[in-house]
């Protein structure tokens, strides 16, 4: 026995869902204001189907909802009646086809709700609108007239989709009820008896909240992907922080440490009288270690280290470097440090055009360079310098920074002109030189050719780095 609830416009779906769950644990959300229920076994609690329908409507009314209630032997029949008729409708099991026979054909279209963000509960109709126009052209007006047509003739004219719609017109279910699982909340809140200030007392409270939260995650085989900490202040403001975690984790101590390190950098402005900790759950990760290589530190470990380093050195100062697709000298990007599992290393060679899925997997030893390559120690902000030139070549360098020497040029290579990003305000246009001074130190210099507005940077010399 199945029931269908169809609520008025503007109904709060969560309230409707809570009403349905009071009667049955197996419910399916069919639309923004439509729910079907499996009412098997409720007869022992409430009695006959009409009593159950009355109870459903009364409970919904107590919550301020106006609903249509229909009970029938099939979900499809219950839904059709809920859409058609206001109030209560009860159809004896087995009599669905006869009861539906007088209902208009337009009801078939109401089972599809294109505005709904919930997947269509009738999968076969996802791409097929009911052939209502065609059926009207044939002179049909009711579900009974459509149901009475021979199935093979319907198949020949309207295809398999037409046959399916005919079964719906008879009130037949094409699939069993797929229960909608209630969204589980992973959240803990604590109201404090008196406001607290400072991180130390907050640490104890966070620990107390994290323990049951992590236990809940562990029971569900979930990890936290995002951690939310909401501090309700005595000033009625809410200080909210969210931490994106590098890997799913459910260790209370690690989560507490990460939250505290973040609050250390972003402390609340007033005392706290209520704390809420919540997480976005995600399936736990499956880890498989290699017997041939050393294991990497766990993501919990690394994320705690990254948080401590960020608190010490500043945000964005720690992580992995990433080359960017740019010819700009020294271009790079920073990303969070998240090493891949140990094992083979995938090469950066471009994929072959004839096989996009093919990847080169190289032996670890084969990827080492054949010879060492000269390294550059790059000044992140180029150091201004003065250069005396003869015949277009630098002969003497004065560097305007203490601790960085200058002197007479023993050897010079250049110029190599480089420019780019002309469309960008941060374009570059320079002539680069490698110079070796008499004291043995080699520098990479460049002369800026681009004149900036309100700046005398054109034809200025800079030291880009030290060859070391």
């Amino acid at each position, binding site marked *: 026995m199945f029931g269908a609830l169809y609520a008025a416009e503007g109904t709060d779906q969560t309230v409707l869902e809570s009403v349905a769950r009071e009667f049955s644990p197996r419910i399916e959300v069919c639309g923004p204001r439509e729910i079907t229920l499996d009412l098997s076994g409720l007869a022992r609690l409430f009695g006959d189907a009409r009593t159950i329908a009355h109870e459903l409507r009364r409970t919904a009314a107590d919550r301020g909802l106006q609903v249509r209630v229909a009970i029938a032997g099939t979900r499809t029949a219950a839904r059709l009646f809920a859409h058609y008729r206001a109030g209560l409708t009860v159809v004896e099991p087995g009599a669905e086809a006869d009861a539906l026979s007088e209902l208009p054909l337009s009801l078939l279209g109401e089972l599809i709700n294109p505005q709904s963000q919930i997947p269509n509960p009738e999968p076969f109709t996802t791409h097929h609108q009911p052939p209502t126009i065609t059926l009207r052209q044939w002179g049909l007006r009711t579900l009974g007239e459509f149901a009475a047509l021979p199935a093979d003739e319907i198949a020949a004219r309207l295809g398999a989709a037409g046959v399916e719609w005919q079964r719906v017109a008879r009130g037949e279910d094409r699939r069993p009820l797929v229960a909608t699982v209630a969204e589980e909340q992973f959240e803990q809140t604590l109201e404090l008896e008196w406001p607290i200030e400072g991180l130390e007392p907050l640490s104890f409270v966070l620990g107390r909240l994290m323990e049951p939260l992590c236990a809940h995650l562990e029971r569900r085989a979930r990890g936290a992907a995002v951690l939310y900490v909401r501090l309700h202040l005595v000033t009625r403001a809410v200080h909210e922080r969210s931490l994106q975690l590098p890997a799913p984790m459910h260790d209370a101590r690690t989560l507490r440490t990460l939250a505290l390190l973040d609050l250390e950098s972003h402390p609340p402005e007033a005392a706290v009288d209520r704390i809420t900790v919540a997480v976005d759950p995600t399936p736990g990760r499956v880890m498989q270690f290699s017997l041939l290589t050393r294991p990497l530190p766990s993501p919990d470990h690394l994320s705690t280290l990254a948080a401590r380093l960020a608190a*010490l050195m500043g945000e964005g100062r720690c992580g992995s470097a990433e080359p960017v697709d740019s010819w700009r000298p020294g271009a790079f990007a920073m990303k969070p440090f998240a090493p891949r599992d140990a094992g083979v290393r995938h090469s950066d060679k471009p994929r072959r055009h004839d096989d996009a899925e093919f990847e080169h997997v190289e032996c670890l030893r084969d990827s080492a360079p054949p010879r060492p390559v000269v390294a550059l120690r790059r000044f992140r902000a180029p150091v201004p310098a003065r250069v005396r030139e003869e015949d277009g070549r630098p002969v003497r360098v004065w560097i305007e920074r203490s601790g960085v020497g200058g002197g007479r040029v023993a050897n010079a290579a250049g110029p190599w002109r480089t420019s780019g990003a002309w469309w960008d305000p941060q374009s570059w246009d320079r002539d680069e030189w490698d110079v070796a001074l008499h004291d043995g130190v080699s520098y990479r210099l460049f002369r800026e050719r681009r004149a900036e507005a309100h700046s005398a940077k054109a034809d200025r010399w800079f030291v880009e780095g030290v060859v070391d």
Partner: protein
Amino acid sequence: MANNALARIETALRERKLDRTLTTALAPLDRSDASAFIPSGVEAIDAVLRGGLPRGQVSEIAGSPSSGRTTLLLQLLGAATQGEIAALVDTCDRFDVASAAAAAIDLDRLLWIRGETGPPERVVDRAIKALTLVLQAGGFALVAIDLADVHPRVLRSLPFTTWLRLQRIVEGSDTVCLLVTPEPLARSAGGLTVMCTGQTRWESHRVTGLATEIRVVSPRRRVDGNARMTAVANDY
């Protein structure tokens, strides 16, 4: 009588649980175990180092600007990031990503900690704290701190207990702690000092590479010798 005195001393130490610290020696380094070292990837250097830099020790690379110390550092980072992870505390933010990519460093496996500008003493203090955090976290094959551009006066003013503390942290672990300094500064008893002197090589007004003479020094001359490293210029 001497044996009785020794036995009574050992009993007293054991009662105060000092016997492990003062009477238990660490196992000697097994030089036949290749996994006890981190190689540089340069045959000549690894031959002099007899395998590479020893794990669980503090070693150093010292040299003047353009001596090849950064090239050698990147070589070691490249070798360390093959299968393991490494960290670089870049005190003065001098790390060049293009040079690192040319040295075949797996950048995804290198934790780069960038220092900020400011008073040298504060910058070095933060760098040392970051180094301590990384060493305490463990799990890294090589943790290097680049102090090459810090004035030797500032480095000499650091208390010697700084290096002793670092040594205690890495002792017995699988981590190599490497200092890159302008002059020899500190190393642990089992660590190595690698002195670099180098010269840029030129051909027809063009830089073709960097020739570095490397001298390895260790306590009691266990590992001692010279090597040469020739690096080619990178078109970056």
